[in-house]
């Protein structure tokens, strides 16, 4: 568990150096980036609101990563999940129906899984690299969303803005308190974390998938089928991302627009790694990553710094995490010269 902590500290150090070179007081900036956003109830609500999709998606992705199934396209699966859920929310005949929200939940999960099923089928049956297919499908999902909100699903009463009509109240999660945006969808994430823990730590199937990832030859010898690891890995990630998309559209967004995610799908990959692909680590990783998003927004608003800093920090954090592993798995020692 030491590596994530070391990586976080080193990221902060590099962050302060970066701020100092840009001519900002590092302490003031770090305070504005990492502490000020959590100083209010609203800040805490936003923190959990953003951590929730990150943790949810990372749990799904980690199931695949454990088996060496590289789903890099959670962003696309999130978008398709959001589209499917919003479609149900907009076009279900009775907008007040109490089953609307559960239906949207199913639609989101199915949408994400359908988008992930394409690379799963291609990898399992056609031997096609899933990294590239999941990524290409992310670009396609973005274009699909853009087409829908500019074309057939555009709100006729929306002054020509590229967005859908707002969802009805029954199609949205109710916030705990109308002053803040945090809503009941965080419980979905809590359940997902528990399920992920059950699957990876307590189920034979989860064990088989870990073996497939760690020792493919041993897994084949034991008769574990690689194709089932591929299917489960990708569908778990797709379902989680799709549900996260649903929770976004039925939560803080309330409608579709051309950009519905600040990159949760990509950031969740990092969260999965920071969390060491295990459920409780992912919770901590998600909280940290969410803080990076909040901090980026905060320094953009208050200090006029670019929100692109968030992605820089994400990259640096992952760099340090990977490097820190080296010092944990290998011990350095001095070798006498040509003894």
């Amino acid at each position, binding site marked *: 568990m030491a590596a994530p902590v070391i990586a976080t500290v080193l990221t902060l150090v590099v962050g302060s150096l970066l701020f100092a070179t840009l001519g900002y007081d590092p302490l003031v900036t770090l305070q504005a980036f990492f502490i000020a956003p959590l100083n209010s109830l609203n800040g805490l609500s936003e923190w959990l609101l953003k951590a929730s999709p990150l943790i949810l998606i990372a749990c799904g992705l980690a199931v695949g990563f454990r088996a060496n199934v590289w789903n890099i396209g959670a962003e696309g699966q999130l978008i398709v999940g959001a589209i499917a859920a919003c479609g149900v929310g907009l076009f279900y005949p009775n907008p007040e129906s109490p089953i609307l929200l559960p239906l949207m939940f199913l639609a989101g999960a199915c949408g994400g899984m359908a988008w992930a099923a394409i690379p799963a089928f*291609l990898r399992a049956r056609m031997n096609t690299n899933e990294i590239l297919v999941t990524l290409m*499908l992310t670009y*396609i999902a973005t*274009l699909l969303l853009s087409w829908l909100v500019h074309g057939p699903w555009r709100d006729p009463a929306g002054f020509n803005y590229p967005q859908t009509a707002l969802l009805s109240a029954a199609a949205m999660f109710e916030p705990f308190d109308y002053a803040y945006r945090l809503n009941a969808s965080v419980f979905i994430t809590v359940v997902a974390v528990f399920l992920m823990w059950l699957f990876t730590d307590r189920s034979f199937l989860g064990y088989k998938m870990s073996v497939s990832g760690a020792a493919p030859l041993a897994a084949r010898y034991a008769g574990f089928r690689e194709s089932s690891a591929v299917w489960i890995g990708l569908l778990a990630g797709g379902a989680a991302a799709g549900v996260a998309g649903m929770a976004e559209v039925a939560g803080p967004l309330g409608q579709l627009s051309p950009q519905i995610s600040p990159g949760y799908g990509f950031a969740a990959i990092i969260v999965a790694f920071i969390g060491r692909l295990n459920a409780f680590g992912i919770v901590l990783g998600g909280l940290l990553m969410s803080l990076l998003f909040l901090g980026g927004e905060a320094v953009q608003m208050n200090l006029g710094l*670019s929100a692109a800093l968030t*992605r820089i920090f994400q*990259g640096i954090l992952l760099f340090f995490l990977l490097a820190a592993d080296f010092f944990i798995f290998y011990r350095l020692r001095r070798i006498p010269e040509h003894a």
Partner: protein
Amino acid sequence: MDLFIAIFTGTIIAATPLIFAALGELVVEKSGVLNLGIEGMMLIGAAFAFWAVIAGLPMPVAIIAGALGGAAASLLFGVLALTFLTNQYAAGLALAIFGSGVSAFLGRNFGSAPIDALDRMSIPFLSDIPVVGPMFFRFDPMVYFAIVMFFVISWFLYRTKGGLILRTIGESPETAHAIGYPVIRIRYLAVLFGGLMAGLAGAYLSVAYTPLWVENMTAGKGWISLALVVFATWRPLRVLLGAWLFGGMTILQLQGQALGIAVPSELLSALPYLATIVVLVIISQNRQMLALHFPASLAKPFRPAT
């Protein structure tokens, strides 16, 4: 005829960044290293080159700045993957995310004004030949440089001892190490070369292809370059042909949008991504062909025994 010439030249130009990036990645992968971070290195290269142009530096310097930016970024990956023996998928992804952040951060003050694009050459006499002249002899110098790089890399990989050593390392680093070749050092050089080429690709995008700063202007071209290497089954000539195929796809969909074909523009924009998937599926069918030229140690960390 004019339309044909426009499509032909457009294809060659659109293929140029793909040729740079994919040929660079080919060399990296031939040494047994998988750098998924092309998209990030291209974006950094694009930002560096654009920055240099705005700062008033001459065009060749700007392009070199882009290449060096890409190389510097690749070094980050190299340290992680080669010295710290990390998972190369994860290190490459980190580079892709980091690069897009750095690029957007550098570009925050670039404004939206276009710059003077890299000038096209008119090769004397040849460019005056009807049809052939405009088709082949009126490109900017980088287009020709990309073709030159294709010949240089093909020659290096298959006709020089250095290329043989590089390919040996990609097949079996243990063997190369046992013979006495500095595996890690040579892999570093390959990674740096890949970074230079990705930086050139990015520079070409920002100072020649669309001489205008747009955040994330690569729009997946780095990832498509990765797919091209697989599509090419790790052979240079096929990288070139693949790049032209994708360049053609890009231009056809742009022409389609310009002609106002009754299809949503998003569908046309999605064509290059769809084509990438289709092409990957077709190529993956032929496992024998893939295995034949696939560098056997690809993406496997290597630590020389002491």
